[in-house]
């Protein structure tokens, strides 16, 4: 069976500036996908191309096997939850939710039935007669969701739908959204710049940077095996180490303190990625690990753990320790930083 | 657009200037006169020489006679206008409204050199003095109208259909013109219906409410024949347009522009001096040259070219003009306006 959404070689320019370059993406039935990246990375542009508000210069977009690249927005079997909800201010909640079915020529009583169902699903039963201006931000967000899902789209696009809510409400709505998605079995394509939101909600994350897709995968996979320096840096904390390519083909890091043998490393500039929790700080060497002499330069307590800054060969590395491992550590003390070479990944990109 | 601003400025200026009790000469007076080339001529012929001679500045309050009278009536208790030019007819209404003061020959010595016809008295008091006559004659386009018209009845000729213009009652000449027509047709003065019946038959292009509208109509060719003031018609001819002006055999209706001293003005002395200035042969001659106003001052000599264009023609005098009894006209004014509205100004 073909993917719900299949994007192939999609490119988009704005006045000669590339906004999207060679985007390849496939979304399966019922998947929750997060489009993640910093502002200006092209995630919203990609969403607008899929919705039909922007026309790409190259590539195709297929929805459930149908090429919709040149179709106007109103002919595409998908719906969008807009960033600021874009509720129609002159229509009641029920009129807003029933708008899609009415436009599609659904019978009147069927429209009413679906509207009531959709409002029940988002927990707004009985709010149908109100005007959007009479609702709170969270309620408006739910109306926007109900207005989109009432059409039973094959794919739901969500453009940073939670960014206008405060933190506590956002957490609550995140859970509800995930639940609703689960119940409906509709594929969600969710744009966000918040990595935590993406990690908690998405089945897969599409990580974007400068109009390109850096990596696609489950959150934990991107974390454990970042494909690029940007991926390593954007998802979770990482120590990014300069990699020198030696004449014999081997690699040196930390001024030669670590030497890696010739491996199937990619061409071009490389960066060494070491997660802070992969560094063990001890007084004595740990068997099976490479012990690097270091000096503690800073200790920051962050509740459940502590972040320790270590000076090694003129570079500062961050280590993440459990509070129990902090015993006997103080700023200025020489220690050993123990690492496993297997934890050290070489990825393309300049450190 | 600028009229309310100018009005406000003039009012402000006069309020500021009259505020201190002044026994000595004021620094300015306010004179109401008409817009366009009339105002320009009054300024050049009277106001400027006056300021030069006395050092008193003149603020112009621009408006038609009727508007000026309305203003005077509204500011009766505290006038901001000191001297007002108003046409014959409106002048009598101003007298009835008691907004004019007596013109004292001692304060205005030039009254002695003025034609007796131009001095308007109510009992012993002089309420107005004429500064020049103008007439409403036949005006025509000399290219489109081959033979010069000789009678007002020529306006009803079929060849002029939809190209005629006469004044509407909104114009100061409108009501008297209706009565003038009534008189030349020999209709009884008490019954206007035959007169209106005939006017209704006139195939007019427009009924002009202002002299400017009439000038526009002749200039654009919208009207090729009709009534117009000698002042306006000769002005067009002077610009090189093919416009002729004749006094028809029935005569031309005429009136004059009169000066009034506003009752209750705190600057009575300066105002009287201004009126005296307007009655000098120089001022009167100047108005004749600029506006073709028939001089109301005795022994004014004008150029032969100008004399031809005066309201009474080359050889005539004030005796040849049909000057109406304004009391009669004003008595019928409301009725004429109403009848006109109902019968003429309706499709």
């Amino acid at each position, binding site marked *: 069976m073909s993917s719900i959404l299949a994007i192939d070689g999609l490119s988009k320019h704005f006045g000669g500036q590339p906004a999207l370059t060679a985007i390849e993406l496939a979304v399966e039935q019922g998947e929750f996908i997060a489009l993640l990246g910093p502002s200006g990375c092209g995630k919203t542009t990609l969403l607008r191309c899929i919705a039909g508000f922007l026309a790409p210069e190259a590539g195709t977009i297929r929805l459930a096997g149908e090429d919709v690249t040149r179709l106007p927005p109103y002919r595409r079997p998908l719906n969008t939850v807009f960033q600021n909800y874009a509720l129609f201010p002159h229509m009641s909640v029920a009129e807003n939710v029933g708008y899609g079915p009415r436009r599609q020529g659904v019978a009147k009583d069927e429209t009413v039935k679906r509207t009531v169902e959709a409002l029940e699903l988002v927990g707004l039963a009985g709010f149908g007669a109100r005007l959007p201006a009479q609702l709170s931000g969270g309620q408006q967000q739910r109306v926007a969701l109900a207005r989109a899902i009432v059409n039973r789209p094959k794919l739901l696009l969500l453009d940073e739908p939670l960014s206008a809510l405060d933190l506590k409400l956002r957490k609550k709505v995140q859970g509800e959204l995930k639940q609703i998605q689960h119940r409906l079995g509709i594929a969600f394509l969710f744009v966000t710049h918040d990595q935590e939101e993406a990690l908690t909600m998405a089945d897969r994350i599409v990580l974007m940077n400068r109009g390109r897709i850096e990596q696609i995968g489950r959150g934990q996979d991107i974390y454990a095996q970042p494909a690029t320096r940007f991926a390593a840096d954007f998802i979770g904390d990482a120590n990014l180490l300069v990699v020198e390519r030696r004449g014999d083909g081997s690699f040196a890091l930390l001024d030669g303190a670590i030497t890696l043998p010739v491996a199937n490393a990619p061409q071009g500039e490389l960066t060494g990625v070491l997660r802070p929790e992969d560094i063990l700080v001890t007084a004595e060497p740990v068997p099976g690990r490479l012990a690097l002499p270091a000096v503690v330069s800073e200790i920051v307590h962050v509740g459940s753990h502590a972040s320790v800054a270590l000076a090694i060969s003129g570079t500062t590395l961050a280590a993440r320790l459990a509070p129990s491992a902090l015993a006997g550590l103080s700023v200025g003390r020489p220690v050993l930083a123990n690492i496993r070479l297997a934890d050290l990944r070489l990825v393309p990109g300049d450190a | 657009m600028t009229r309310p601003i100018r009005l406000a400025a003039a009012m402000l200026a006069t309020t500021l200037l009259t505020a201190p009790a002044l026994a000595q000469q004021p620094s300015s007076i306010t004179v109401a006169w008409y817009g366009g080339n009339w105002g320009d001529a009054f300024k050049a012929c009277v106001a400027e020489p006056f300021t030069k001679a006395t050092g008193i500045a003149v603020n112009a309050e621009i408006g038609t006679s009727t508007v000026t009278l309305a203003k005077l009536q509204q500011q009766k208790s505290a006038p901001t206008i000191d001297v007002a030019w108003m046409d014959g007819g409106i002048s009598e209404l101003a007298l009835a409204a008691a907004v004019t003061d007596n013109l004292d020959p001692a304060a205005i010595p030039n009254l002695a050199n003025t034609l007796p016809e131009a001095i308007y008295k109510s009992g012993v008091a002089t309420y107005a003095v004429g500064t020049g006559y103008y007439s409403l004659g036949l005006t025509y386009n000399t290219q489109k109208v081959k033979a010069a018209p000789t009678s007002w009845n020529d306006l009803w000729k079929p060849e002029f259909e939809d190209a005629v213009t006469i004044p509407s009652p909104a114009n100061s000449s409108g009501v008297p013109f209706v009565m003038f027509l009534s008189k030349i047709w020999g209709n009884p003065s008490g019954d206007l219906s035959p007169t209106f019946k005939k006017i209704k038959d006139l195939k007019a292009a427009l009924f002009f409410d202002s002299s400017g509208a009439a000038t526009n109509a002749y200039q654009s060719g919208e009207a090729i024949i009709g009534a117009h003031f000698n002042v306006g018609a000769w002005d067009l001819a002077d610009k090189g347009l093919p416009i002729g002006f004749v006094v028809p055999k029935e005569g031309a209706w005429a009136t004059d522009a009169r000066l009034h001293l506003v009752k209750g003005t705190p600057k009575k002395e300066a105002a009287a001096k201004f009126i005296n200035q307007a009655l000098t042969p120089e001022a009167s001659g100047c108005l004749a040259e600029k506006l073709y106003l028939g001089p109301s001052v005795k022994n004014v000599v004008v150029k032969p070219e100008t004399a031809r264009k005066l309201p009474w023609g080359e050889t005539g005098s004030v005796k040849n003009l049909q000057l109406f009894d304004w009391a009669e006209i004003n008595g019928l004014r409301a009725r004429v306006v109403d009848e006109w509205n109902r019968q003429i*100004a309706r499709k």
Partner: protein
Amino acid sequence: MSRTLRPVLLLCALPGAFFVAFFLAPMVVVLIASLTTPAGQPTFAHYVRILADAYHWDVLWVTFRIGALTTLVCILIGYPLAWYLVRIVQWRPWRRFCVILLVVPLFTSNIVRSFGWMVLLGRNGLVNDGLIGLGLIERPMRFLGTELGILIGLVYILLPFIVLAVGNALAKVDPALEHASADLGATPAATFRTIIFPLSLPGLMSGAVMVFMLAVSAYVTPALLSGGRITVFSMLIFQQYSSVFDFNYGGALSITMLVLTLALVAIAGRLSEPRRA
């Protein structure tokens, strides 16, 4: 408390005094005049004279008909024009130029404008020459001195009020609403009908009310373009004040006009109010 209140009261008093001096006081003067005889005795005679005379109703009918047609034509031309300026024109200098072109008539002198109309609409005017040249008519059509002529003149100077009011309303419609509408399956026509037009309606209404009020109360344009052959109500009022000097009867005419106009506008406002559940 009274200490903090006093400056506020003083600040309010200034516009209040302005309102009383320039709006309320003249209105009261006219109202009182309309209810008294020239000698100052109270009377309804002026109103009876107006309302009992079919001629006045006739003139009112002409006046309001011209006002309504002016409003209608202004909407039919002004709405698309506002749309063009706000939604289609991208190049800002061109938009600015168009707006200036639209507003310029308001600043030209009446005499210049009236001469312009004669040159354009007169018997030998450009429009008639053009129509005859194209073979559409044989004899010059009469524009001046007809309701059509007055209509053209009023639309010309009142159009900017609709365009600016509607343009302002259209510019305020969030583009996201259009996207949302398209996203929910509405064609551009359906989006206009269900979203954009209803949201621009308040602007359209306020523009229409302004145009209607200005059209029925207009004096100069009808006076110039009627050629004295058609009478609208403001001319009757002006005649009483400027030619006949009957301020009592003139006042009653003014108040009649004011009350009827406000009543019509109120009815129109009630009728066009969007139905609300």
